């Protein structure tokens, strides 16, 4: 095709060459500044009337050949980003043209064009947007060494609560926008360059995908991100209809810019340092504690040889160590991040492409992640009416983790770090023989003093010998066409394909646990393969004001959206693999289990959006979206999600013109509804499956397995928002404030427990109840100094959210965990009260001696039995308290500590969240810091509960050294006595409820940009160096490791418990960015 066109052109030009006096010129175009060649410069021949006659473009070497029609014509060289220059026509020799860069910066050109919202679904300018959204520009932050998207967001946006789930690589953060609004995992919808990222239907077993870092979730390097926009109110999220209920994050990646090709390289090297662990007992202290526990519980007893210091015991050397298990599994890790990008473009096409490689080390041994990703964003103008865009994104993730092993309950799995905390410190890592000579093996007894070797495993052995790896591949392709039918009417078509595959493998050899290799827990390999694919389309007609007048501006769009996704999984598990080196389940082991599954979901949506603006001061925006999804039956299939917002730019009113200090400011109000749909596309069906054994006698047996959901419907969130945006003092101070109320109706409860008398355990989904969040937010930005050489900026934000469960589903029982016991908190929800209130006993200290255990009535009088002997206080009917036991307040004064003595003891919802920061730019130095705070909430310190209880054989913290030991001992802050299997010394009480308030230095950055003159000498476009620190300091009164305890509303009984996850490491990063 191309050839024919060229031939055709050549034929056309032939007669012209005869007619006129043609001449051929050749030459090279270079940059005057650095002498680099310029690709894609236009060499154009103009006739005397300044009409374009002929032209050509420079090739990759900057060379051109132009066959001029007439030697007398003028030839000009032009390329975006350089001054246009006329050439002296001299066909006798190659011409070298040196172009000077324009003083007019390209960026400024784009600024004059009004920025549209990142979302292409609505057709409104950012400036006129009447909804509550916050847009963060990441361009500035990048050179400053921001490590992750979480860093960029944490503490920056009011109403956005970000909590790091754990400090392990690959695990990440939880985002809650304006409070817990549904019974799910409150995961905001992420929209990447206009494509919603929800390609993972439920049933797809990407392990703990909801805990992934948002950066990992969208699977793109942070350097690719240009901006993040957070949509907070339902008027703005309504455009995402049934996916928008938990808020929306719009992420925009960089695009190519017209101009010379630019190469950029960035290296970031980080040191990850684990904060100090809770000090634990050493071997000697542990043995002493254990002996005391046994003695207090049983009196005289046979001392188990492991804690008896018996030199004749063959395992003496294995049980007389002082191992600090935590430090053996902790290390200082390093992360290397290489990022390379190329961008540029001409009038016809612009391109952006990037490659990134990150090798992240975890602070727990044998953990790490490697990620490779690449992106191409290409815009091609087929004509001035036709724009064709291609986006391509590929990621590969290799995540190395450690196996988590069952703790014996069959429900909870213990990770390496949890194990290291409770592992007996008198046990050694390596095995010694009875003479004290090391055998070279890990010390992994089948049964130890603590229990079975597969439950109380050697964490170092499991970390080093076992493996739990995951490889993920993601590919996303987006094609877009934009056709300008009329200057005010635009047609857009988007088709996005994505494909994701993951493979997880784990293996545990027998020598990691010390068990016989035929045991079913070892020499076991498991592999699971998942893949999912989706197609998302958008077809849109949008229009801009066709009126001649500027008084009325009308714009709008109608969009048809469809998406469909499929998933497939396969899992195979086999054991009795005859070798510790063969780690593949397909080898000749014994296959325990093979499973496969697949599924599909589809949905369509129709969105209409209309915006009206009068006199550039009064804005009215409406959206209406209707969605239908395959997860619903015919009667409830369609959901409607309207949104309306209005704004008044009062600063532009004529009567405000006199107010000099007021910049562009507006008042806005919005209302809207957005929704949430069940993730499981097949939940509504009643299904029948083969019964347990599959048969009775010789007959096949089939039984019902799932209840039909006739009432399944959309969960809806409606919200009202009133806000104000103020620009003051010549745009030096920006203040934005919002007041909102958000009400969730028909809450979707997943796997809702129902009475077993129904024959079933759960309803897959139940709609019911009402949840409300209301609150206010304030954000401000203040440019303290704004001069040429120095710039000082401050920012501050604060938000308050109050959550309440207005209505519970019908027949909902508000009390759970009523069988109180050690380490158990009774759970309650109360209509009209927030989720996350703690209930428990009131802890009053420790009984100094047996005679202090006396029951009293409400007036403080001692209670006596019929014989006149004072009654001791008892725990239900099971146990009578003694000296050294914990004192719980007998609220109802009945002489018994039971469920009736449970009181409200705290609340896990923060009163205020927010952050503040400062940036100082002086010459080429840039210093900034950011703080995050959460105030007014309580945490249950589960770690303390498990390491200070002293009722089992787990290792305990140094705090237990100040415990009750003898009758009459009475010291301030003393802990109860050590007592093996005590029934009531560690009940859920306010003993472990602590204030979680904290202020944290999220990041601190010092960046230096090399002066342009020096760069030029180094033949670089730019060079900057930055040093940054992440989470360096935390100010808190909380005694646990980390006060960042997330919110989780997957069940209404949620309470904020510190579960001893790896705390986020302190990270020091050196980053170097260079542009060519």
């Amino acid at each position: 095709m191309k050839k024919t066109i060229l031939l055709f052109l050549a034929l056309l030009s032939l007669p012209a060459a005869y007619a006129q006096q043609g001449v051929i010129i050749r030459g090279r175009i270079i940059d005057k500044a650095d002498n680099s060649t310029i690709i894609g410069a236009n060499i154009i021949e103009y006739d005397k009337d300044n009409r374009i006659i002929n032209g050509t473009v420079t090739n990759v070497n900057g060379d051109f050949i132009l066959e001029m029609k007439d030697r007398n014509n003028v030839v000009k060289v032009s390329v975006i980003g350089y001054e246009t220059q006329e050439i002296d026509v001299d066909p006798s020799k190659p011409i070298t043209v040196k172009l000077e860069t324009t003083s007019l910066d390209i960026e400024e050109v784009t600024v004059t064009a009004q920025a549209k919202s990142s979302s292409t679904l609505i057709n409104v300018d950012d400036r006129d947007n009447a909804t509550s959204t916050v847009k963060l520009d990441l361009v500035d932050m990048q050179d400053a060494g921001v490590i992750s998207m979480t860093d960029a967001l944490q503490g920056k946006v009011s109403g956005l609560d970000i909590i790091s789930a754990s400090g392990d690589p690959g695990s990440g953060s939880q985002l809650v926008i304006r409070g817990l609004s549904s019974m799910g995992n409150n995961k905001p919808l992420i929209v990447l360059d206009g494509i919603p990222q929800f390609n993972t239907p439920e049933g797809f077993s990407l392990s703990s995908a909801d805990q992934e870092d948002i950066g990992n979730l969208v699977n793109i390097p942070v350097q690719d991100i240009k901006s993040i926009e957070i949509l907070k109110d339902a008027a703005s999220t309504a455009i995402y209809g049934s996916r928008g209920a938990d808020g929306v994050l719009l992420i925009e990646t960089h695009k190519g810019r017209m101009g010379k090709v630019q190469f950029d390289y960035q290296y970031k090297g980080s040191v990850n340092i684990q904060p100090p662990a809770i000090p634990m007992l050493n071997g000697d202290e542990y043995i002493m504690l254990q002996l005391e526990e046994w003695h207090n519980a049983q009196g005289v007893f046979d001392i188990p040889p492991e804690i008896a210091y018996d030199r004749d015991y063959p395992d003496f050397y294995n049980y007389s160590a002082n191992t600090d298990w935590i430090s053996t599994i902790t290390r200082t890790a390093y992360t290397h991040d290489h990022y390379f990008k190329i961008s540029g473009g001409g009038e016809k096409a612009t391109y952006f492409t990037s490659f990134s490689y990150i090798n992240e080390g975890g602070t727990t041994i044998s953990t790490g992640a490697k990620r490779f990703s690449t992106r191409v964003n290409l815009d091609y103008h087929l004509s001035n009416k036709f724009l064709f865009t291609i986006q391509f994104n590929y990621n590969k993730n290799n995540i190395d983790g450690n196996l988590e092993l069952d703790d014996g309950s069959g429900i909870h799995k213990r990770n390496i770090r949890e194990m290291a905390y409770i592992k007996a410190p008198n046990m050694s890592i390596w095995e010694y023989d009875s003479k004290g000579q090391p055998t070279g093996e890990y010390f992994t007894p089948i049964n130890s003093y603590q229990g079975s070797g597969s439950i109380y495993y050697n964490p170092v052995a499991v970390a080093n010998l076992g493996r739990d790896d995951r490889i993920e591949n993601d590919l996303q392709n987006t094609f877009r066409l934009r056709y300008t039918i009329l200057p005010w009417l635009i047609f857009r078509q988007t088709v996005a394909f994505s494909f994701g595959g993951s493979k997880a493998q784990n293996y545990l050899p027998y020598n990691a646990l010390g068990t016989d290799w035929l045991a079913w827990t070892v020499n076991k390999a498991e592999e699971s393969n998942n893949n999912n694919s989706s197609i998302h389309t958008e077809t849109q007609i949008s229009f801009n004001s066709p009126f001649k007048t500027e008084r009325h501006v009308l714009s709008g769009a109608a969009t048809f959206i469809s998406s469909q996704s499929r998933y497939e999984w396969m899992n195979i598990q086999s054991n009795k693999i005859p070798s510790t080196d063969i780690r593949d389940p397909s080898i000749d082991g014994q296959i325990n289990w093979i499973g496969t599954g697949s599924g599909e979901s589809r949905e369509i949506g129709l969105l209409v959006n209309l915006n009206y603006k009068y006199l550039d001061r009064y804005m009215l925006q409406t959206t209406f979206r209707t969605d239908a999804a395959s997860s619903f039956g015919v009667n409830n299939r369609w959901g409607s999600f309207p949104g309306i917002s209005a704004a008044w730019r009062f600063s532009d009113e004529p009567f405000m013109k006199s107010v000099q200090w007021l910049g562009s400011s507006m008042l806005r109000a919005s209302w809207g509804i957005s929704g949430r749909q069940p993730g499981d596309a097949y939940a509504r069906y009643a299904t029948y499956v083969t019964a347990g054994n599959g048969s009775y006698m010789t007959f096949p047996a089939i039984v019902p397995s799932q209840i039909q959901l006739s009432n399944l419907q959309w969960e809806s969130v409606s919200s009202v928002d009133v806000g104000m945006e103020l620009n003051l003092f010549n745009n030096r101070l920006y203040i934005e404030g919002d007041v909102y109320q958000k009400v969730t109706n028909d809450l979707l409860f997943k796997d809702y427990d129902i009475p077993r008398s129904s024959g079933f355990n759960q309803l897959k989904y139940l709609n019911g109840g009402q949840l409300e969040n209301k609150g206010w937010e304030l954000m401000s930005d203040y440019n303290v100094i704004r001069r040429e050489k120095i710039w000082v900026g401050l920012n501050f934000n604060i938000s308050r959210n109050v959550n309440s469960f207005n209505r519970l589903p019908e027949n909902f029982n508000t009390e759970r965990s009523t069988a109180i016991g050690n380490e158990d908190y009774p759970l309650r929800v109360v209509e009209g009260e927030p989720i996350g209130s703690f209930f428990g006993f009131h802890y009053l200290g420790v009984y100094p001696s047996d005679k202090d255990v006396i029951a009293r009535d409400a007036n403080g009088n001692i209670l006596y039995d019929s014989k006149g002997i004072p009654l001791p206080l008892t725990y239900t009917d099971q146990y009578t308290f003694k000296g050294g036991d914990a004192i719980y307040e007998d609220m109802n004064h009945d002489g018994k500590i039971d469920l009736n003595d449970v009181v409200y003891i705290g609340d896990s919802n923060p009163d205020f969240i927010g952050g503040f920061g400062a940036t100082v730019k002086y010459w080429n130095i840039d210093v900034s810091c950011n703080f995050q705070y959460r105030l007014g909430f309580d945490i249950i310190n589960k770690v303390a509960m498990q390491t200070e209880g002293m009722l089992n054989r787990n290792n305990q913290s140094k705090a237990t050294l100040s415990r009750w030991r003898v009758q009459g001992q009475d010291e301030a802050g003393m802990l109860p006595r050590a007592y093996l299997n005590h029934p009531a010394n560690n009940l859920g009480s306010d003993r472990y409820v602590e204030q979680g308030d904290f202020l944290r230095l999220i990041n601190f950055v010092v960046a230096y940009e090399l002066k342009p003159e020096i760069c030029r000498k180094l033949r670089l476009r730019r060079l900057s160096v930055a040093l940054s620190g992440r989470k360096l300091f935390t100010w808190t009164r909380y005694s646990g490791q980390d006060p960042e305890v997330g919110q989780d509303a997957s069940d209404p009984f949620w309470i904020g418990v510190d579960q001893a996850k790896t705390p986020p490491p302190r990270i020091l990063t050196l980053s170097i960015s260079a542009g060519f």
Partner: protein
Amino acid sequence: MKTGIKHILIILALMVPTACSDWLVLIPPQGLIREEFWQSKEDVEAVVMGAYQEFAAMDELLFKYGEIRADMVVGDVNQGNDDRKVAEGNIYSDNSLCNWNQFYTVIDYCNEVIKNAPEVKKVDNTFTDYAMNGYLSEVYWLRGLAYFYLVRVFGDVPYITEPTETDDTDLYVEKSDGEEILRKVSKDLVDKRIYATTDGYRTLAENKGRVTKAAYDALLADIALWLFDYRDCIAHVQRIEANTEYVLMPGSRWFELYYPGNTLESIYEFQFNRSLNQENSMYGLTNRNSYNYDPSPKAIESFRKGSSTRETVRAEDASIKRYSENDYIIWKYVGRQADGESVRTGIDQTSCNYIIYRLADVLLMKAEALSQLERFGEAAQILNLIRSRAGFDTPLSVPSSPQAYEDVILEERALELAFEGKRWFDLMRMGRRNNYARKGKLIEIIVANVPSTQKRILATKLTNPLGWYMPIYKTELERNKNLLQNPYYDY
């Protein structure tokens, strides 16, 4: 160029799926959905079998409910924590044995059949009335048996007769009076008995493992006895006696009841067959290496006493097996012969059936009813029949009082039906009779089986007959606000 654009637009427009509702209907790729089910009589049969299968899977539970609170078994070292608490009378509502889920799962399967079988008949022309009523008679019986267990274990329970098909079903059902439930169950059974086959199944296993008229009569008799309707009980047993297909096995072949099972004496037993992957739990619970449940000293004593007076059929090497002085195991589910030697091997190990009713059982029920009606002669006749089969030639001489007969029959049932999940219910029946007149006797029997330290506490606990029932499971109470905890446990 313009036409090119048009072409592209047309292609794109075609790519956009049009909004039709068919496109949004997705059927799960795995499993059957209701829309595809209940189409043929085979579907009905499959769910009936599902109900049998689920009930059979409860064999271990049926054994535990019937034995561990009574005096014929003791727990060994591997006894579960929850089991031990039940045995010791320390039952709290978080004890997993209080979970009634499996019974209600069976009930739901039965209700599904009762609701849907008539619907299937409308679409499947080959489904005859006779066949449909046959299936219905099976599930009515299974449901009746489930409720009979529930009422005996928990007292008052929710009475549910509709399947839980959709989320419109009322899931939060209150408890109904236990006695009323049993009367309703009896009425259903009386109504549906005529549809049950006498012996019309194709194989012997089916005639014993599926519901027959005799199974109906046995369950009716058992319920009637529990409700102290002695005349009804006798009438139901008489119908079984009239059926010549059921005869007592001779003493020499008594052990065939357990191995290979499905004897002429058997009325109903849940079928197991390891080669079909239908494994029982009783072998795992009672074999020598399980150290889970062993014969109690009282059981050993009873059988030993028997052996000295020529109890040869049911004693050592038959009901129990002695390895050493203090090492006895339950032999009924482990042995192959009444020789104490031949242990089940291979697929036989977990293939033994679990007997629900056999002729000796119902005859003793009749004897109990007769004696309560002071028809002592007839009662003595039955007792002697059972005893002579067990090798006792000399007739018993029992004083002519209902109480004396009650004691003798109770003891005879203990020996004849040892470890068959009957003892605790027999004791409860005695304890409840005549307004708890013999409560003390029940306490005396049970307390004799526990260590001396626990005797007093347990005696106090058992004084209140409400404590004979189990508490409702904690999570069940948490899930259903309309349920009230059973009175004894409501603190």
